[in-house]
């Protein structure tokens, strides 16, 4: 009797589950269709709903129908294809890595594809679409392989995102360097980098559609095995599922899908991350969505709705003529960022901070040797930085200059070179210290002003001021940067603090906010100064170009304050970084201490951005490396991190100024190029 009842209930449930899943799918299909219908009535040509209807029924003038057939429909189909491909790819990647942050963006797939396409653009070879898509696929796959190889599949969110962010930054830095070096050859590639679904006829769509279909079919075939992986590696093996083979195949197929999307429309940010995240709460309500065979296509539909919705929203808000200049990817990124923030807040994942890396505690001598070695290296780099450049100088020149009796050329050269070297030195130190403080307060090795969006907010503040006010002063720029940084920091830390700075929540929030800030910076520059991409890249890539001595003063002042604070409060810093309870037991006002350190960290990051643009990586690498070298006590970490940060940025600036002189690369690009391999080396070394 009891048995019969059970099966009856079970059948009921499965019926309910199926109807639920069907209802969700049907609603999504309807939504996508409505959005698609609206999308084809929007555009720069004077072809509205009635003309579209006429064209579709074959009654329109030849001109109107060609607009619908060769421009509107391809754009709409491309948006659907791109959305489906990215949504499905993201869902599959998250399933096989059991990681809610895996996506084409965080696995550096997009960055790898973008670099591959950038290299092709620079060589000036015009490849047929399938070939360039192949190149994008190879680039994306290589990047994903490196990230997954380094982070290990299913081994925790932190390592994956660390490796992915590092590689993505490094690869995009190389691509951006190409854009700066070959402005003519890569004209258009910059805005394309933001992703745009506009199409030149149906050709590309027709060529890419089969690739997407093959990718989707492949994932459907893999769906059962992907479900098995969700049970855990051992359980999956017990069911006879080849774990490694399934993972590798899924990643390859997902990469193929993202590469197809990148070839069609450029990297459309965040769809691959958001779509599965939006499906997850639905899964809880409708159990029928648990199976990959259902949830993957549903994630694809959500992706399509996201891309189409962004395209529609953009054209509904801005006039069509202007909308052409705004890449769709900017909108998906902002929309995606909002979703990401909401998701982060709803995240119930309790994966709190990982056990701190087990680090050996080096002797006092080792610490001193490290400090001395780094100081010597820094002095060496500073000397080189002052002497080298397009004009090579000798030390005697510098002596003459310091005494104010140098000749004309030497005076000119050093007057402009010394502020740049100082900006690099101080910004590097400030970012390193800022990273150290943020990592201590959040007890999160991933946290740094760049990843958390604070640098991005500072950049946005500064760019807004620079584009609206005629020649603002150094303190005004620093102030605007601080305003932007303070708003983003209050937002990110305020929301993150509610969960006690949970690892995943902080990173999700930060990734969302920093991407939104970068997208908004692009947007401000595209709208205010559309024909000056050099300006945009210079701001986004972090550069000491054109710095004068007064520009450096704010960061110098704040750095001195920051160092004083870190030195006098070093014990509190150790306690804050330790755990939640010890400081309370010792009677320390934990919230106040945290707030104080964060305010200083934000000030440091903001003034560094004002002096040298948004330089990522330093705040992440320097404290991390410092802890690896000298243990986790702040009395040791702070000086080592400061030296490392200054060294890294000075070296990057020096390389950026000299390697391809007289043209120059931003220090931020160079820190990424120098910092990424080093950081990846660290990841490999600490892997157990």
């Amino acid at each position, binding site marked *: 009797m009891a048995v019969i009842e059970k099966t009856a209930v079970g059948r009921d449930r499965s019926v309910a589950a199926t109807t639920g899943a069907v209802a969700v799918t049907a609603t999504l299909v309807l939504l996508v269709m409505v959005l698609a219908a609206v999308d084809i009535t929007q555009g720069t040509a004077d072809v509205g709903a009635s003309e579209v209807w006429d064209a579709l029924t074959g009654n329109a003038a030849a001109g109107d129908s060609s607009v619908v057939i060769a421009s509107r429909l391809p754009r709409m189909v491309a948006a659907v294809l791109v959305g489906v491909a990215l949504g499905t790819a993201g869902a599959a990647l998250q399933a096989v890595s059991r990681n809610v942050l895996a996506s084409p963006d965080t696995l550096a797939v997009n960055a790898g594809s973008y670099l591959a396409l950038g290299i092709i653009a620079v060589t000036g070879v015009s490849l047929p679409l399938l070939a360039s898509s192949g190149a994008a696929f190879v680039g994306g796959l290589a990047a994903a392989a490196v990230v997954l190889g380094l982070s290990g599949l299913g081994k925790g969110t932190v390592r994956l995102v660390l490796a992915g962010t590092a590689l993505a930054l490094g690869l995009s830095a190389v691509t951006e360097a190409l854009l700066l070096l070959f402005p003519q050859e890569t004209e258009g590639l910059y805005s394309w980098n933001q992703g745009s679904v506009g199409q030149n006829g149906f050709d590309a769509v027709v060529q890419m559609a089969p690739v997407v279909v093959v990718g989707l079919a492949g994932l459907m075939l893999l769906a059962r095995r992907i479900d098995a992986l969700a049970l855990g590696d051992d359980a999956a093996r017990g069911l006879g599922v080849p774990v490694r083979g399934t993972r590798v195949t899924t990643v390859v197929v997902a990469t193929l899908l993202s590469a197809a999307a990148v070839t*069609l429309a450029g990297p459309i940010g965040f769809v691959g991350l958001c779509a599965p995240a939006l499906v997850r709460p639905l899964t809880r309500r409708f159990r029928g969505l648990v199976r990959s065979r259902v949830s993957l296509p549903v994630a694809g539909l959500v992706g399509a709705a996201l891309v189409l919705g962004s395209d529609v929203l953009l054209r509904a808000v801005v006039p069509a003529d202007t909308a052409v200049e705004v890449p769709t990817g900017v909108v998906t990124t902002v929309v995606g960022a909002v979703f990401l923030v909401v998701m982060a807040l709803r995240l119930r994942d309790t994966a709190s901070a990982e056990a701190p890396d087990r680090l050996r505690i080096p002797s006092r001598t080792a610490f001193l040797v490290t400090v001395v070695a780094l100081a010597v290296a820094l002095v060496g780099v500073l000397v080189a930085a002052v002497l080298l450049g397009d004009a090579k100088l000798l030390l005697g020149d510098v002596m003459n200059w310091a005494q104010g009796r140098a000749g004309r050329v030497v005076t000119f050269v050093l007057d*402009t070179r010394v502020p740049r070297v100082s900006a690099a030195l101080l910004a590097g130190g400030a970012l390193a210290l800022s990273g150290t403080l943020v990592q201590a307060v959040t007890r999160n090795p991933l946290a740094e002003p760049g990843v958390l969006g604070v640098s991005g907010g500072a950049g946005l503040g500064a760019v807004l001021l620079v584009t609206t006010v005629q020649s603002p002063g150094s303190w005004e720029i620093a102030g605007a940067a601080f305003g932007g940084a303070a708003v983003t920091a209050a937002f990110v830390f305020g929301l993150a603090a509610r969960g006690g700075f949970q690892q995943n929540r902080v990173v999700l929030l930060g990734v969302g906010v920093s991407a939104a800030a970068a997208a908004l910076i692009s947007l401000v520059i595209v709208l205010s100064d559309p024909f000056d991409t050099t300006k945009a890249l210079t701001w986004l890539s972090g550069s000491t170009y054109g710095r004068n001595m007064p520009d450096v003063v704010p960061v110098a002042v704040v750095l001195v304050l920051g160092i004083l604070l870190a030195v006098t409060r070093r014990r509190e810093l150790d306690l804050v970084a330790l755990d939640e309870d010890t400081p309370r037991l010792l009677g320390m006002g934990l919230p106040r201490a945290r707030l104080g350190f964060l305010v200083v960290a934000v000030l440091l990051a903001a003034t560094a951005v004002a002096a040298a643009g948004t330089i990522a990586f330093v705040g992440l690498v320097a404290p991390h490396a410092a802890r690896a070298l000298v243990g986790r006590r702040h009395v040791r970490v702070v000086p080592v991190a400061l030296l490392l940060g200054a060294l890294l940025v000075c070296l990057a600036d020096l390389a950026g100024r000299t390697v391809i002189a007289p043209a120059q690369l931003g220090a931020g690009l160079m820190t990424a190029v120098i910092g990424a391999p080093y950081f990846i080396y660290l990841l490999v070394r600490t892997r157990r």
Partner: protein
Amino acid sequence: MRRHILATATVAVAALSLAACGTTEPSSDDAAASAKPAGKITLTDAKGTKVTLDGPATKVVATEWNVVEDLVALGVAPVGVADVKGYTAWNTAAPLTGTPKDIGTRGEPSIDTVAALAPDLVVATSDLSPAVVKQLRKVAPVIEITSADAADQIGTMTEGLDLIAKATGKESESAALKKDFDTSLAEGKKALADAGLGGAEIASADGYVASNQVSVRAYTSGSLLGAVNEKLGLKNAWTVKGDESYGLATTDVEGLTGLGDVQFTYVANDADGDAFAGPLAKNAVWKSLPFVKAGDVHRLPDGVWMFGGPRSMEAYIDSLVDALTK
């Protein structure tokens, strides 16, 4: 391991310091200040800055292609030019004279290189950031030229030319250039009118293809080419609004459907490929456009710099008249 690093670093720094001692230039007390010839030139540049020169400048550095062209046209061979390779590809109306040094990109010229050239005048444009101009002023006298102003492109162009002419003592050459330009305009206008093209509608553009997206850049009536077109008695067909300085607007293929029956001219460069003859040629919207059907699409010859000076514009007028009256 660490000790090794330390030792290596110390040796490296020591070696560097030893190698780096000495000077590349005698200190200023050693160098006797040489007397400069009289004949100071005082002028006020486009930004309202008063600049005083000891005499007509001869060692001149230019940070943008339009001012490079002006210098070359005036008979001054610049000693430093931003992006020499690009200039050579994009501006053949006024080929470089002498062997100028490349000072880096137009957006971020290397101040080190400019300083090392020790010029007696730097000609910068309104496109260069104020902070950089401030640094350049330490290196040499700087005059800033307005690159473009959608309110009056031709006036802006000749004002810039006059300023540079004044600073380099080439005022008679400047007058001759302006006269040639006016003659060219008048002849072009007459030739077009004779061909029955007076008042014809024209749309000038250039275009780029990245991946499979085409962006078309419209030269509205606020652009330099647009202004010259109007002086030639043609009518600008673009309805999109251009930006405030260059008078350019971005649109896509759809945006061309509003143009109607016009003469469509475009600029391309073999260095970058031809978006209109290439990827666009197969596009159904493009093929349905009335001017494409009528064969009124004209590619202008390479090497006419769309934002250049009188020389480029004369070359433009010649090529336009050629194309339209063929």
